[in-house]
């Protein structure tokens, strides 16, 4: 009596997908928007495709959706136009501001120097928050690309930075306020006119606090300030 060769359940055509195969498809469907995820998983649940084809379907759709986002100017502006250059600018600012503050703390009698260093640090924090806000609000679905564009120079500089331990972190003073700004920007929080004007003023002031190179670079990075101001104006209309 010949025994039929055992077929792996749920891995061939003609059987519903279940178990680990289905879980991997569900995980891949996490890349889709919630509404589309339900529709696609429903379609796959009632067909008898094999796991690999179903996975290809889900990943293919997610890739097409991502690609279609990049036809717009927003992801380019957020990642290559802001996140990448701003991370380089802010790393320089973070190092300069922290070095100033360390020097001022050593000479506490010079109150003016301490005040100047603190104001520089505050400017860096505010600028980082504003840049993060703009990145978050300009292109929410492609935040991963902006994060990548920000992290690559940071990781490179950390690997090249001669400092050890805590001195490493001087490079990344801007990171937390920037992340806070992204979080606020993602929630589409409307900025009041006063806040927008304050941030625009900070954006103008921040490059002025540094030497010639920082000035030129910072002036080129003024567009987030104008974006914040323009968005507020449109919302008020």
């Amino acid at each position, binding site marked *: 009596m010949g025994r039929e060769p055992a077929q792996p359940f749920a891995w061939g055509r003609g059987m519903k997908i279940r178990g680990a195969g289905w879980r991997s498809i569900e995980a891949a469907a996490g890349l889709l928007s919630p*509404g*589309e995820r*339900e*529709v*696609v*998983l*429903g*379609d*796959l*649940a*009632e*067909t008898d495709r094999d796991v690999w084809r179903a996975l*290809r*379907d*889900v990943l*293919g*759709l*997610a*890739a*097409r*959706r991502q690609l*279609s986002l990049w036809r717009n100017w927003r992801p380019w502006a957020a990642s290559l136009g802001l996140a990448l250059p701003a991370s380089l600018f802010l790393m320089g600012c973070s190092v300069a501001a922290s070095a100033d503050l360390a020097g001022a703390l050593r000479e506490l009698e010079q109150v003016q120097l301490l005040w100047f260093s603190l104001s520089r640090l505050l400017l860096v924090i505010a600028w980082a928050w504003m840049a993060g806000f703009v990145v978050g609000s300009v292109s929410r679905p492609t935040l991963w690309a902006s994060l990548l564009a920000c992290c690559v120079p940071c990781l490179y500089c950390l690997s090249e930075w001669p400092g050890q331990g805590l001195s490493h972190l001087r490079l990344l003073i801007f990171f937390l306020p920037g992340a806070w700004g992204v979080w606020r920007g993602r929630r589409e929080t409307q900025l009041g006119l006063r806040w927008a004007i304050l941030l625009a003023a900070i954006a103008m002031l921040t490059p002025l606090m540094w030497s010639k190179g920082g000035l030129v670079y910072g002036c080129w990075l003024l567009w987030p300030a104008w974006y914040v101001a323009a968005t507020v104006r449109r919302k008020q209309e």
Partner: protein
Amino acid sequence: MHTFKNRLDAARHYTHNVVLIMIGEFEFLILSAAAHLGEEAYGAAMREVIETKGGRTCSLGALYITLDRLEAKGLVKTWMSAPTQQRGGRAKRMVRVTREGVRAAREFYQAVIKISSGTVWGESLRSRLPGDAV
């Protein structure tokens, strides 16, 4: 008077060019599958029709991206159905071909039939049709 008539003609051609919506081959397949299924047209069913009747492989990605494009052109209308038990309690994206969709598909079909007449593939298809074989 002559100039005015020319202007009118130009306006008519302009309107014609604007109203005419060109569709591609895959868009035509999707419109045809949706029309075949009628009230029961949704993603998985349409894919089955395209693959069995059309003899083409069809990925869900291509299907849904093209559906979005057709909806943007106003050739189909889509909406979410109520969740069904068969799909594990998940909703379907239902599809209906609009009047503009029917017109666009008809124009595409007529263009294909016209341009195929007199060609080897056009004639061989005609000879295989049941009515012509007798």
